[in-house]
């Protein structure tokens, strides 16, 4: 259970969750519930494969994933911030829309509503051989995982700094807690919330791009509930980047252990319950009460 192959697998499984949970964090800290993360993740996955298919460059694919994620989250932002609609309903609608639209577009582009053709994936980072000793020492470290794994881990640190060490982060958090106060001080609540939701779209879109580029193709509904699991991880991590990271790693690890225990005389069906059991146990036993931002879900 603690061999390197399992830990590696855990980190890779956690990566889309980490990016998506961070996304959820920015949205919810600004006061907007974002269950559309599932749909954004799926759209990001789809867009990244389309862009990679046409340009041949997976980094262009990742950029497209980010862009598509922002586009979908913009829809959520307009509906729930400008039109003050119910944020849960908007999120559910976006998830269903993303599911149908990605299948429909896959069918239009590739003639199958289930599978895209394979595309190029991201090459692992590596210094050129000519760097000699330095390349030999550094490459096993920076080239061990797909590049976006490092990007995800870096994003956690960045999110922490932005949220807790910058004026923007302070305003964002204040908007989620007490928008009236923010408004009184002359900061636009709508602007802060739009920023939060758009950042969330960008991060979840990137999570989707990792998911798809790591498998080199798009498959219908490939998000497979990861957006919701990321949301749970965010709550589990008490709306904190580092906490969310921990929760995502735990979920990823449970998933990896589940896969590695197979074929060892434990029934598959039982083994596959492990991640969910762990989630329940952790939620009940470990974290105690999680307090959401005070104005979460309330239109302003």
């Amino acid at each position, binding site marked *: 259970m603690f061999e390197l192959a399992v830990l590696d697998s855990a980190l890779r499984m956690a990566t889309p969750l980490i990016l998506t949970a961070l996304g959820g964090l920015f949205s919810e800290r600004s006061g907007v519930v974002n269950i559309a993360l599932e749909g954004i993740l799926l759209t990001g996955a789809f867009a990244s494969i389309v862009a990679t298919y046409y340009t041949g460059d997976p980094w262009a694919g990742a950029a497209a994933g980010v862009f598509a994620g922002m586009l979908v989250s913009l829809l959520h932002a307009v509906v729930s911030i400008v039109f003050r609609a119910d944020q849960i309903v908007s999120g559910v609608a976006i998830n269903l829309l993303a599911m149908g639209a990605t299948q429909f577009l896959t*069918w239009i582009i590739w003639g199958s509503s289930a599978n895209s053709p394979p595309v190029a994936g991201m090459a692992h980072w590596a210094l050129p051989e000519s760097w000699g000793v330095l390349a030999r020492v550094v490459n096993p470290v920076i080239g061990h995982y797909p590049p976006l794994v490092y990007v995800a881990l870096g994003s956690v640190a960045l999110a922490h700094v932005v949220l807790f060490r910058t004026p923007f982060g302070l305003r964002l958090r204040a908007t989620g807690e007490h928008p009236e106060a923010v408004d009184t001080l002359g900061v636009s609540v709508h602007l802060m919330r739009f920023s939060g939701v758009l950042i969330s779209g960008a991060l979840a879109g990137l999570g989707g791009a990792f998911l798809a580029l790591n498998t080199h193709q798009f498959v219908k509904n490939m998000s497979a509930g990861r957006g919701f699991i990321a949301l749970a991880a965010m709550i589990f991590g008490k709306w904190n980047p580092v906490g969310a990271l921990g929760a995502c790693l735990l979920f990823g690890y449970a998933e990896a252990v589940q896969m590695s225990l197979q*074929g060892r005389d434990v029934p598959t069906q039982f083994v*596959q319950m492990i991640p969910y059991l762990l989630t329940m146990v952790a939620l009940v036993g470990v974290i105690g009460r999680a307090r959401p931002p005070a104005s979460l879900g309330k239109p302003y």
Partner: protein
Amino acid sequence: MMKATALLLAVLVVAFAAGCNATREGGGSGAFRVGMVFDVGGKGDKSFNDSAYRGLLRAADDFGVEHTEFEPGQDADRETGLRKLAQADYDVIIGVGFLFSEAMRKVAVDYPNVSFACVDFDARPDETLPPNLAGLTFREEEGSFLVGVLAAMYTETGRLGFVGGMDIPLIHKFEAGYIAGARYVTPGISTTVAYAGTTPQAFADPAKGKELALLQYGRGVDVIYHASGSTGNGVIEAAKEVNRYAIGVDSNQNYMAPGNVLTSMVKRVDNAVYRIVQSALEGIFEGGLREFGLADDGIAYAVDQYNEDMITDEMIARVEEAKAAIVAGEIIVPKE
């Protein structure tokens, strides 16, 4: 709230409509028409469904029949899809995958003038099928035995892996045959087995397939046989990434990663589909269960320009010897 509900409804309608795409080619009435409904892995899975689709296209080319494909968006769409085609007076309707078995039974009785065929039909013991329903099955364990022989001869680490899609008896046949074949060469060989899941979605999850394969490769396995639809695309991707070996399934998948795909266990769903269309066209369609295996080339292993450098004459000799023994009934390949 009214607005929100209306929005939700609109989106639901769009999502549903997009979930059931049907393509129609041709359009004139009176022509012979064949409808095909795909499995979870869907068209473009490069494996099971694509094999069936190739058979359909070949029949369309050779006989000039019109054809329509339907990709169910959700589980419930499966029977709906069959009924829609039957109502539209299609002459032959083919369901690709065991998931259609139950729906086929019902729909075939309701439309006695339409010929139905179900690939991988999940027959009940002593079941008699309606005269207009053909249940097609394959002895996958026989082909899996042969690729097991090749894997056991090719491995350097002496460890073989298997990644299955959904954990069901149909896929256990692949596993059992493969392991039996490997043990035929090396009696005490080590095998690691994993399944992607317990729902049909397990046939369409390449991300999971890749992780399962990387785990097995990380533990010293160097050849993995997959029987998992498009989930297996992830297995082949993993083989390429860590430069180990995979064995393809259903379609010939050797080309997907030349040098990393040792061989493929080819299930000639295409031939079975082709023959069904042909027999219906000639008016000699017969219902009932039909099984294909090594003896009638319904099952094969693939050697082509992509893997001929990996397969030695010695390996061919051994695998052909096993094949002859299976066809002659000297080796009985286990199914469980």
